């Protein structure tokens, strides 16, 4: 019935595009003139939310992004993919969101304020951001809210008043039942194949509402709790060689690298 239709909140993060190989410059990761995109796992979360709406399980899908003013572009992408409206928690331009300044605990606390204010039933986020690689925000948010959580979701199916979710584990998969919402779910790679936003939908997305809030006004301590002391590139591997044939490969592994008997 209509009364059971859930309100979904999806978190989306603006990160360096997945195909860019970043460099360290002047003691930090150089983000000048680097292509930025929506974090790939967040795209999967948006797709999951939009599919719940298309299946008439969700009544509304709201996208939330936390970061500098350019995050509105990321939110427009989420709107073009089918989210209904968006909330932007704007941070100062100087505040990096890749763990150097803003860190997951503060992000989760900002997120919590929005969840409580919006009365969301289901929060969907990616399993990790590909810049910080922290993978903390989803389970932290669930902990702060006291809600159940499922991480690394590979399938999400409505069941009764709740959800049946299959999640990826270290040895395969397992099923977790959420008998009743609310809940937080983090999305793994194999949950779905995110759609491309079509031009008409990109045009429509321009008319959708984006509300902007200031991160500094939300009563959350934004100071990084873990101090980043140093940023550096890992030692590069010594240059390898191209062998002519299988015999030479076996000889090198046996007598030079000494890794096989």
């Amino acid at each position: 019935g209509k009364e059971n239709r859930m309100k979904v909140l999806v978190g989306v993060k603006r990160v360096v595009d997945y195909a860019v190989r970043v460099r360290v410059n002047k003691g930090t990761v150089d983000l000048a003139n680097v292509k930025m995109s929506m974090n790939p796992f967040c795209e999967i979360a948006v797709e999951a939310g939009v599919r719940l709406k298309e299946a008439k399980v969700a009544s509304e899908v709201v996208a939330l992004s936390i970061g500098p003013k350019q995050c509105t572009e990321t939110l427009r992408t989420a709107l073009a993919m089918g989210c209904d409206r968006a909330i932007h928690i704007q941070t100062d331009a100087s505040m990096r969101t890749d763990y150097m300044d803003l860190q997951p605990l503060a992000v989760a606390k900002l997120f919590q304020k929005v969840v409580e204010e919006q009365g969301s039933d289901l929060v969907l986020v990616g399993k990790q951001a590909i810049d910080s690689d922290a993978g903390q925000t989803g389970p932290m948010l669930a902990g702060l809210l006291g809600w159940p959580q499922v991480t690394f979701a590979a399938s999400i199916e409505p069941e009764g008043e709740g959800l049946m979710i299959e999640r990826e584990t270290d040895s395969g998969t397992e099923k977790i039942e959420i008998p009743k919402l609310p809940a937080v779910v983090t999305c793994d790679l194999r949950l779905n194949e995110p759609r491309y936003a079509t031009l008409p939908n990109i045009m429509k997305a321009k008319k959708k509402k984006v509300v902007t809030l200031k991160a500094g006004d939300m009563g959350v301590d934004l100071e990084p709790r873990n101090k980043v002391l140093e940023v550096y590139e890992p030692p590069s591997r010594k240059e390898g060689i191209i062998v002519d044939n299988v015999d030479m490969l076996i000889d090198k592994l046996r007598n030079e690298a000494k890794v096989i008997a």
Partner: protein
Amino acid sequence: VSDPLVAGAVPPATLSVIAAAQQLGDESVTLLTDGVPSEPVPDCISSILVMGGGKTAESVAAAVQSVAKEHSYSHILTSANKFGSNFAPRLAALLDVSPVTDVIQILSEEEFVRPMYAGNVLTKVQATDSPLKLLTVRSTAFDKAAVTKSCDNVTELDLPEWTASIWKGESVSKNDRPDLGSASIVVSGGRGLKNGENFGLLEKLADKLGGGAVGASRAAVDAGYVPNDLQVGQTGKVVAPDLYIAVGISGAIQHLSGMKDSKTIVAINKDADAPIFTVADYGLVADLFEAVPEMTEKL
């Protein structure tokens, strides 16, 4: 906090976490497990806490929270795999601690190194916000603690039942090969293998190499050639064996992230421009369907 015991033994990933814990000083280490180990444990384990029943992140986090309140631990560590990554950030929020995840190096009691940007950047992090440090540890970055003795100092925890999420069963992929995360030799296949049956070629090679593990790239998993738990990379497993043989894998940033700390890397690929050759110690530009059987035969 131990990964689930395997046949009564502390699993390899947790033995690495224990080795990391020992680097923090010579204090005693308490092991929180899902059962009483029937196999020996490392010498530094002074007590074992057992939580019954809890398989969800909520129950594990609640169990650790309850003991964290009672004992004043300086550090709580667990593995940075899917088990540890599931509950540790939740626990962190419950304790209002900012965790350091995927630690690859311990510099002091409060300074740690962790990778970012798919391993292309390392950051030295100082955790000063609380007396308690919460860490998830990349197991391949630490040796495994030796198992030496049994520990009789066992306490069963009495825990409240969590019902807002219910564990309904698992599907463990059948695999009698060595554990991918701790094998000394790994043979991995990518899209170049063309189908799941052809992974048999890699298994034969791994067997000839004395029983190596078999891994895969994301492309091979997405195409359904092999199950997801074989995926090596930023979003799958991180491996660092003595020998990593990448067969028919182009070498995207996300794959390199999971294997570039291997001691020796071999790439077999027919595309001479494949990025995998930039990290390979030995590259062979060849058709894998000829080179792999030839190598298996000649070993």
